[in-house]
């Protein structure tokens, strides 16, 4: 029995763990921006960790249920309500047929993950149910939800009363810290610009979405002089168009760093100074505009250590929900 969308929120999309394997054609991996929160939400309602959920940004949708289901909301602090009763985040609760799930105002973070027992059963496209709106691909009709949409649910799942202990919930710090492995075209920056990038406190710009997060407020970067390579273009921040890693940081014109995320453009003509480590990608999805952010330089050993810690945290959540 489907869920009826009474109001869609700001930009609510169906997401799972994404669509690897098509980046060479410009089709990005997509999927939840905060994958730890997405996995935890699914665990709480007894779904596979990679089942499709709803990702709501800044503002929640209003959903009418036509059958009983278990629901869990994780990630941003966006308190869920069943009819008019507030429910706890990071915990499973029941919604009965005829009841409406809605949300209070956002208290912290940016993206909430709404898992429903059975998972959102939109068609699988290229191996995933994730929505890639720029390519009108996947999800519900390739776009964010609209009022009047009906979302089919799968079967299975459902376990009442479990929650993620508070010490295992993760959100961005204040100021947020993003750890960076420098490289790719890092050498294009002068020593002074390299120092400034890590010294300055940046702020999340209003242009922050699933494709990329832009930051502003730091000093403009200067470049090492060069003869432009053939085909790159005359600006010192231009390169011969190449691939962009997920999490890579470009800085067009040396002004505002842009960090690519799950719906990344797969390539282009701007130099990259480094890449945010995989363990910190989830945190970016929880940054609101204007949040002060520091980039910190780390080495590969630290990056792999952080990745390992994140795996351990997920294991602890699995164990706690059991």
């Amino acid at each position: 029995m489907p869920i009826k969308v009474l109001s869609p929120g700001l930009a609510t999309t169906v997401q799972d763990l994404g669509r690897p394997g098509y980046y060479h054609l410009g089709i990005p991996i997509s999927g939840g921006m905060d994958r730890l929160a997405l996995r935890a939400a699914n665990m709480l309602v007894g779904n596979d960790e990679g089942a499709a959920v709803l990702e709501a940004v800044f503002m929640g949708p209003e959903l009418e249920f036509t059958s009983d289901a278990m629901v869990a909301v994780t990630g941003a602090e966006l308190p869920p309500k069943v009819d008019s009763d507030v429910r706890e985040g990071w915990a499973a609760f029941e919604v009965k047929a005829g009841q409406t799930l809605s949300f209070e105002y956002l208290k912290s973070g940016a993206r909430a993950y709404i898992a429903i027992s059975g998972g959102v059963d939109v068609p699988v496209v290229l191996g995933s149910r994730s929505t890639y709106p720029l390519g009108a691909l996947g999800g519900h009709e390739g776009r964010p939800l609209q009022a009047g949409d009906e979302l089919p649910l799968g079967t299975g799942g459902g376990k009442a009363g479990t929650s993620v202990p508070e010490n295992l919930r993760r959100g961005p710090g204040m100021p947020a810290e993003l750890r960076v492995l420098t490289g790719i075209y890092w050498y294009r920056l002068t020593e002074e610009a390299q120092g400034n990038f890590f010294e300055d406190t940046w702020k999340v710009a209003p242009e922050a979405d699933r494709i990329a997060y832009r930051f502003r407020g730091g000093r403009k970067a200067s470049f090492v002089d060069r003869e432009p390579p053939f085909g790159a273009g005359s600006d010192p921040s231009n390169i011969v168009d190449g691939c962009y890693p997920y999490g890579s940081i470009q800085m067009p014109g040396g002004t505002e760093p842009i960090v690519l995320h799950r719906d990344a453009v797969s390539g282009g003509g701007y130099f990259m100074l480094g890449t945010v480590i995989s363990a910190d990608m989830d945190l970016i999805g929880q940054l609101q505009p204007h949040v002060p952010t520091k980039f910190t330089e780390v080495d590969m050993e630290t990056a792999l250590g952080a990745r390992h810690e994140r795996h351990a945290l997920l294991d602890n959540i699995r164990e706690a929900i059991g």
Partner: protein
Amino acid sequence: MKTRYSFGGDEHIFVEVDEEMSMEAFFRSLSMTNAVRESKIRGVTEICPANASYQIKFDPDLISPDDMLAELKRLESSAEQADSVLKTRIIEIPVLYNDPWTHETLMRFRERHQDPNSTDLEYAARINNFTSVDDFIAAHSGAPWFVSMVGFVAGLPFMYQLADRQHQIEVPKYLSPRTDTPKLTVGYGGCFACIYSVRGAGGYQMFGITPMPIYDPNQEISYLRDFMVFFKPGDIVKFKPVDRDAYDAAVEEVEANRYAPLMRDVTFSLDDFEKDIDGYNKKLEEALHAN
């Protein structure tokens, strides 16, 4: 040409074959990515060839970044010996140059352009020393183009003209990217032509529009039924200037799902091409129009 390796975080390796664009750099990047694909290294999740570079995404839980790097370096020497011959296809793409839709868009974003007082076509013609826009269009639609990368957004081809360097067109990107570009705009930035597969942001100069869709997520268009993305690296494109009537007629064909792109299988040899560029391009064009 010296290959440079760099980690892109803990999940990617970025490999620059050459800092500047050339057909040699493209072919080396392509043979390296082919070698990576064939070697089936455990933990590789994405293999992305680009114009003069390539990128591998891998799972560091399955293969350590240092081991992944060593594997790629080992494959480099075997890839160098591969011949630069490709079995591929040539496709004719009709273009309405100076069309009303890109014109409306470029006027809307004039303050982001190097030369707010002329159009993108006029600007590109002038800085590339053409005496008129018509001459520029003749050069743009003269020699064929080689798809050297697919990406940016779903199915967008980057194309490099099959010409010697002094006949290559070069233009800068917009000073600041536009937030809008019509779907199927024929664009240009650096030494690359592109076709915007979907409507959206973009920084390339805009010269015209094609009626031929190149991406269909619903896979309803007859020639996109097998796969939603039309282009792959190595495809050869010949632009054909058309007038408004021919453009409208083609759009009607597309809408009735009767449009069939003109295309032929060809073999491209980089060595033969470089021995006689004009003669080789003539042969490619003959192959396109052969029965």
